[in-house]
């Protein structure tokens, strides 16, 4: 089950990059070669893209080969022990998905309300996801953290912080 998902992910990643390489081939068809040579804006992407596709295909065939082999049973067992059960493994996946979701929300909030307010909302949520859940501690860490970031970056170093852009 675990390795099945991993296999799917591995094949998906390789297929994704093959697609990207094909897309780059199509787009780069518009770029001309320097007259009388094979030099031009399309040369390097064509070369690298082709090589990458070969490696991606090898990866896919290798993954499929491992998936159908008997060794896979042992790997499955080892992974089960490593991730300590189905529930824990599900929890780990959920956490990663939630963290990515929170980051996307954080980005959108920055666009809407700017860095400071977005961070005030994002930090407690991320702390909660990280099992840091005592309310008083979360409030203190958030307020002190945001104040520290503002003072050290904006005031002392003069580093600009992301500002709201939607309104």
């Amino acid at each position, binding site marked *: 089950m675990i390795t099945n998902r*991993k296999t799917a*992910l*591995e094949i998906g*990643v390789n297929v994704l*990059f093959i697609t*990207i*390489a094909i897309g*780059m081939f199509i*787009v*780069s068809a518009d*770029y*001309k070669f*320097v007259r009388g*040579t*094979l*030099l*031009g*804006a399309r040369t*390097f*992407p064509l070369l*690298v*893209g082709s*090589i*990458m596709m070969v*490696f*991606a295909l*090898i*990866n896919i065939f290798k993954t499929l080969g491992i998936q159908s082999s008997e060794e896979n049973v042992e790997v499955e067992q080892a992974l089960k022990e490593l991730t300590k059960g189905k529930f*824990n493994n599900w929890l*780990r996946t959920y*956490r*990663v998905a*939630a*963290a*990515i979701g929170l*980051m*996307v929300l*954080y*980005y959108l909030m*920055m*666009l809407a309300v700017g*860095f400071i307010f977005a*961070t005030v909302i*994002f*930090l407690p949520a*991320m*702390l909660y*996801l*990280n*099992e*840091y859940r005592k309310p008083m501690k979360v409030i203190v860490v958030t307020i002190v*953290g945001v104040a520290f970031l503002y003072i050290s*970056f904006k005031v002392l*170093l*003069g*580093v*600009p*912080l*992301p500002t709201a*852009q939607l309104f």
Partner: protein
Amino acid sequence: MITYLFNGFEFLFTTMAAPALFGGVVLGIILGVLPGLTATMGIALLIPLTYYVSPSVGLSMLIGIFAGGIYGGSVSAILLKTPGTPAAGATLLDGYPMAQNGYAGKAIAIATIASAIGGLIGALILSFLAPQIAKIAVRFGPPEYVLLGIYGLTMISYVSGKSLVKGLFAGCIGLLISTFGIDPITSVPRFTFGTLNLLTGFELLPILIGIFAMSQAIEGVRDSREVTPPQIKLTRVGISVKEFLRILPHIVKSAFIGTFVGAVPGTGTDIAAFLSYGEAKRSSKHPEEFGNGSIEGVAAPEAGNNACVNGAMIPMFTLGIPGEAATAVILGGLMVLGLQPGPLLFTDKPEIIYTVFASTITSNIFMIVLGLLGARFFAKVLSLPKSVIVSFIFVFSVLGAYSMRNSMFDIIIMMTAGLLGYIFSVLDYPVPPVLLGVILGPLVESNLGRTLLVSDGNLMIFFKRPISIFFILIILSTIVSNIYKHYKSKRVLQ
């Protein structure tokens, strides 16, 4: 050269460079102490801060983080049986048994002294050897740079881990990323899709932060329920003169091994540490003590891995070739600061390069003071809530990616790179080749174009110059040795 080095020291101690270096060492040790957080990640996160100060000050801070981070890994290896960094893996073998036997303080003192002396020897070799290599490298023309770039790309085979194909695939992704933006030969905007954000290609910094910092933060969230092993109590930190004299020859020998290993691109601090450990065990009068708490077993790997830090900077500064992840990130930092790593740095910006050398030497002195006097503080760092640190890494990643161009687009790039880095780590795909590809792609492409334009497309130009032929031989020997190595390891496995 000596005058330049003295000037470097003068600059270091008369500007903010020394405090920045000190701060970098402290921060590096803290990051190194915490398992799961690495010096590489710290460097990637702090690069954005460096372009608000002078390049010398910024680079001093990055050097401090690198040196401190490698040393810091030993503290958690000794007290927790969990190496803070891969480089401390060999230290654990004897450091933890020493701590179990009630000598945790002694083990930390040995690790500190060995790290500092090893690092100091490595830094001195770097300071005197690098300018000599740069003198040769300054004669390079476009054909040599093409071959140098290709040689750098062959390093992918060393940083690929278990699967060479996965490493090469990752390297190609890096090369493809480097093709976005204006073509260096024809000046045609390439894959920009009409957006100004892509006119200069993908910025290096958001990619660096994404694949080295954000991906680790995602891993931190995933593993946030994992229980930290109990920490052994720290005893008095110090060693006797007799013990020091016993470990000194091993420290010196390991320092030379570490510097040499580091200077070979594609190796790393972990390899230097294990090689030094093996050599110390082989030449020790008490080999039976190894694995049970030998003081030589702690000293040798620590001297080796910290010397390796400086050795790894030799190809980075002289040739612009990053040998492993941390130096690749520092190299990226140099480029972000507008400096072109390579031999010309020694002639164009000697004040910066020699301040960096002064920093590498001084960082070891800071390390010994901090390590011996602040051991209790760094041991306490182990009890810091990792969940809070991980949460802040996300925020720092966003700030770092944004601050370079004040661009929200770079935050999206950072997040995408972070996700890619995480997926790669889940699938056992190596990440450093991506970075090698991004950094070396433009070097190879632009110089290949120039070479072929000059020679009217005649590839024989590569065989007409002595340095080119030297590089071709090195590249061929690297490829052949790698094929042999993979073939041999497969046979051993069978």
